[in-house]
Every structure is written in structure tokens, then in C-alpha cells.
């Protein structure tokens, strides 16, 4: 009987899963079993082949739970890295053993923790490093078009693109500004955060660039930006005794710069898409290395999801045959997802990625 059966469509589900044909049926009134089954049969064939009769409440709940998990995945919540549950189990085991032993005698607990923590750190370090971006060689440098199509790479369709630029001082900043200008492309989904060191005029460069962007893109296609100041890691002529403390202070401030949600992209509207920077770009000073180290630690201790905080280090144009100290640190620790140099000879020597920044002159020379 038609009046006994009401068919409702769940709008939320339709939006979240992107399918129009999914229907949920609720039977409000039951006269007797036979009629219900009959009416259901008719509805099933009349509306859509995908209709799923959910008579059993338990089954229904189970299905809902499963659906929720699916939609969460669809929305881009980063899936756990392959095999991470194995590591979690191993970690649990290693945690459970000292806890049990701590009941037996307390010093064993301390000793084991002292041994296990470094093991965990080393383990995670190499695990996170393994997940760094693949290097497809020259593909990185290309901008390609199909016939009447959008260029590749195309970032316009992504939910969020969040860059974090660490500015150094003097020549480093000037070079970084050139790089930012040369890669810039107006996109409404882009957010840029500039991290500058205190007692420096880099913020002025960043703000004048943002002013130019604002004047070029009146319609908001230039994206949003904000600026963060962190203290200098080591001042000129500072003694080596006190520098670890200033470095620690810088690291704490860098933690804030990495984790604080951009004010222009509130979580109420954009959700978690702007929670973590996607790409960290630095080109020189020690502060940049500290920011990247903090980012690496965040990934190591499961505080940040693995699919964010990608690090790019760009060696200064002045270095033609050897890496600078910061460059060597990045190469040695291997925390950077991509190490870029600006001279071909250096690229072949160090195995870094070559990005030619200076356009070759088209005049015959020499």
C-alpha cells in the first residue's frame, strides 16, 4: 500500500557522496509483513535499481557508519601511510613492555625508555624520509598544454594550496622575491605565509610584493597572505654557548608559525584544508633549516599528516660548485623533499634538481 510507505531522500548524503540515485527508505507504519514486503518490492523497482531496503536497524546503523567513514575519506582526509598500523602495533608492544616492567622495578623502566625513544626517533625519521616526493627529473620544470585545455600542473582545482616562504636577509631575500615572482600564478585557493626574522627588513619586500599582487588581481584571484615574525637563530658574533637556547626559542616560534591557522581562511568555512602548509620554501639562512626541522619533527611524532609540509630548499645562485652550509645540512639530513640548485654543474655534482632561474640572453656573446 503506497500510503504506508514513505520514501525519503537524504540530502546530506547526496551532497557528500556525489550520487543522486542513492535513496534511503523508512517504513513508518507496518500493518502486516506481507503487505510491507510487497510495497517494498514495488518501490524498489519503480525508483532506482540502487535502492537498498534496510529493515534491520542494526544493519542500517552499520551501513551508516561505513558510509560516514567513506565520506570522510572522500573529502580528502589523508589516508594513513602504507603499513603504518604495523608500526603502531610495534610501538604499542614496545610501550607495553616497559610499562609492565615498571610495575616490577622502576629503574628498568627508565633505562628502557632511554633506549626506546632514540630507536623510535631514528625509525620514524627514516620512515618519513621514505615518503618524500618522487623526483621525475625534468618534468618538474615543464608547463604543458593540451589542445584547448588547462596547463599542467594545474592547481586551480585543488581544495587548498598553502605556501610558506621563509625569508632570510639581504641577498637571500632579494633572490627569494625573484623566485616567488617567477613562480606566481593568481589562484583564489592560494594562501601564502611569509616567515621573516626579527630585526630585518624582509617584511618590507614581502609586503611590497603582496601590494603588487593586490593591485594586479582586484577580483580576489590573487589569494590571501599573512606574515609571521620569528627571532633570529643566531645573531652575528653571538657566542656558541648561548646559541642553542636562541635556536630553541626560534624553534618554538617556528612551531607557532607552522601550526597557527591562517586568519583569512577560517576553519568554519574552509575546514581543515588550510590547517597545515603544503609547501615550505627556503633558500638560505639557518632559520629556514630550523623551520624545516620542526616540520620534520611534527611529521615524525604523528602531529602532522604525512601529505603536507613538503620542503623545498633552493641553493643560492652565488653557489656554483659547492653547496652552502645550510645546503649541506639539508643534503646530509635528507629532510628536504626537493633540493634545488641554479647551476647545471652543481646539479650533476650533488644530484640536486636543476632550476635555471636566469634567463639566457639571446644575444651572441663572446
Amino acid at each position, binding site marked *: 500500500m503506497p500510503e504506508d510507505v514513505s520514501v525519503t531522500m537524504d540530502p546530506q548524503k547526496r551532497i557528500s557522496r556525489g550520487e543522486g540515485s542513492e535513496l534511503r527508505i523508512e517504513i513508518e507504519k507496518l500493518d502486516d509483513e506481507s503487505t510491507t514486503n510487497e510495497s517494498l518490492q514495488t518501490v524498489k523497482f519503480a525508483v532506482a535499481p540502487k535502492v537498498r531496503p534496510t529493515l534491520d536497524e542494526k544493519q542500517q546503523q552499520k551501513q551508516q557508519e561505513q558510509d560516514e567513514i567513506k565520506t570522510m575519506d572522500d573529502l*580528502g582526509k589523508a589516508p594513513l601511510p602504507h603499513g603504518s598500523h604495523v608500526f603502531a602495533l610495534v610501538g604499542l608492544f614496545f610501550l607495553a613492555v616497559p610499562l609492565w616492567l615498571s610495575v616490577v622495578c622502576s629503574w628498568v623502566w627508565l633505562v628502557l625508555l632511554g633506549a626506546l625513544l632514540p630507536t623510535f626517533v631514528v625509525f620514524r625519521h627514516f620512515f618519513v624520509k621514505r615518503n618524500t*616526493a618522487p623526483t*621525475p627529473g625534468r*618534468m*618538474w*620544470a*615543464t*608547463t*604543458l*598544454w*593540451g589542445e584547448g585545455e588547462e*596547463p*599542467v*600542473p*594545474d*592547481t586551480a*582545482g*585543488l581544495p587548498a*594550496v598553502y*605556501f610558506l616562504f621563509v625569508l632570510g636577509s639581504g*641577498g637571500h631575500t*632579494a*633572490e627569494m622575491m*625573484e*623566485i616567488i*615572482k*617567477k*613562480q*606566481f*600564478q*593568481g589562484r583564489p585557493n592560494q594562501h601564502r605565509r611569509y616567515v621573516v626574522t626579527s630585526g630585518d627588513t624582509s617584511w618590507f619586500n614581502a609586503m611590497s610584493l603582496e601590494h*603588487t599582487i593586490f593591485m*594586479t588581481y582586484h577580483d580576489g584571484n590573487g589569494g590571501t597572505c599573512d606574515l609571521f615574525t620569528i627571532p633570529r637563530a643566531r645573531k652575528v658574533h653571538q657566542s656558541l654557548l648561548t646559541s642553542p637556547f636562541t635556536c630553541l626559542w626560534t624553534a618554538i616560534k617556528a612551531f607557532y608559525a607552522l601550526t597557527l591557522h591562517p586568519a583569512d581562511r577560517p576553519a568554519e568555512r574552509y575546514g581543515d584544508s588550510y590547517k597545515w602548509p*603544503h*609547501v615550505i*620554501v627556503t633558500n638560505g639562512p639557518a632559520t629556514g633549516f630550523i623551520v624545516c626541522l620542526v616540520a620534520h619533527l611534527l611529521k615524525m611524532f604523528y602531529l602532522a599528516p604525512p*601529505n603536507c609540509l*613538503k620542503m*623545498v630548499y633552493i641553493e*643560492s*645562485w*652565488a653557489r*656554483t*660548485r659547492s653547496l652552502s652550509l645550510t645546503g649541506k645540512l639539508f643534503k646530509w639530513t635528507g629532510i628536504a*623533499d*626537493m633540493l*634545488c640548485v641554479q*647551476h647545471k*654543474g652543481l646539479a650533476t655534482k650533488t644530484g640536486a*634538481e636543476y*632550476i635555471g*632561474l*636566469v*634567463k*639566457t*640572453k639571446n*644575444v*651572441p*656573446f*663572446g
Partner: protein
Amino acid sequence: MDDDSIKHPSGTAVGRRCFVTVGSIASFRPLLSEIISKDFLACLSRHGYDAVDVQCGPDYEWFQAEVAKLDQNDVHAINIQAFPYTKQMIDYMIQCRGEDKVRPAGCVIAHAGAGTILEALRVDAPLIAVANPTLMDNHQLELAEEVEEQRWAVHGKIGNLKSAVEQINRNIVQGRLDSLPPYAPAPFPVPAEERITIFDWMALTCYPEEFARQQHRAALLKQEEEFRRQAAGQGSGTDEKGEIGHMKYD
């Protein structure tokens, strides 16, 4: 050779300017004293230079005193101007850039600092890069040699700057640097085909599925382009080539 360079077809080969810069921090007296040496000034005069602007950094007073000591016969009516530091470096460099029917090309003689070299290259001014050997482990030498290898500039050596100026003059004649179009600053945002796309690729790696999709598409596009180039090479028709250009940039 030298006489040929002076009688340049444009007819304006006199009135070249030279801009010397040593950076703001480090002192570079060997270069400054070579600039005002008798031989070098004679060489400049012979090649049609009549003005030298010198940014001398911390050695400003010393340089002024040295210039005052010069004999007027040795100066060859070259106008030497000195100042300690300027923020408008680019204006002086543009003065050394040849422009059609405005001025002939001169040259920039600079310490081999990365920022200075980049700035000179940006305005297309002929450049002589001189490494300052007094700096920490002579790190500028590396860059000076590299830019000469890439033919972006001429590596000038202290004690033999004359040959670098001769080389620059040969370059000016070969590259027709006296008649360049007016200087225009680089457009912003840069044209799409000149963009650095590496950060976009990195952002895409945060979305693995989209990244894989676009990588695949890029590979396909690249293959297609290669096929088309091969086809164009076999057909040897100019029409086909034009069509490719249209497809790529339109």
C-alpha cells in the same frame, strides 16, 4: 680591431658610459686604483668612453683623494664621478645599456657579487665581473668563472682589465648591443611558458591522486609533442611548424 669598434655602423660609438661598483660592505681598492690608472683610462678613451661613475663603498674618501692627484693629460677628458653608495643602482646600469637612437652601449665593471651580477643581467648591460680576492676563501672567483663560462659576462682580472674592455667592445659589435629596444622591466605575472612550476608540482604531491593524474597527463602531452615534432621534421613544411606553435601557446 680597436679602430673597427670605434667606427661602429650606428655612428654613435662615442659617448659610452662605464659604471663601476664594488658593493656596499667590502673594500676593493685594487679594482678602484686600476680604474684610474693611466693605461686603463687611455684604453677607455680609445674605445669611445667619456664618463665613468664609480660607487666606491667604504673607500670613498681615499678614492676622491686619488682622483684629485691625477694628471689632467692622463684623464683624457673622461668625466669621473664618485659616490659611496646608491639605492638606485639600476638607473646607473641602464645608462650603460645600449638603446637604439638614444645612447651607445657602455659597460658595467662590478665585483662578482650575486646580486650585482643578476641586476646587470636583468637590464642587459654588458658586464665585466671582477672577483674580490680579499673576501672569505675568494668565493667570488667561482661565480665570475661560471658567468664567463655561460657567456653571461666577461671575467675581468685585476691587472688585465684592458683586455676585458676590448672583449666587451667585440661583444657589443657582434651582438649589436648599441641598438637594443628600450628597457622594459620584467612583466608580472610572468608569461605562463616561463613560469617556474616546481612549487605547483610540490603542492600537487600533497594530493596524491590528483598528482598521479596530472603526471600521467604531462607525460602523455610530452609524448604527443615529440611525435608532432618528428612529424614536422619529416614533412619539412613551415605550415606544420606554425600550427604547432599555435597549438602550444594559444
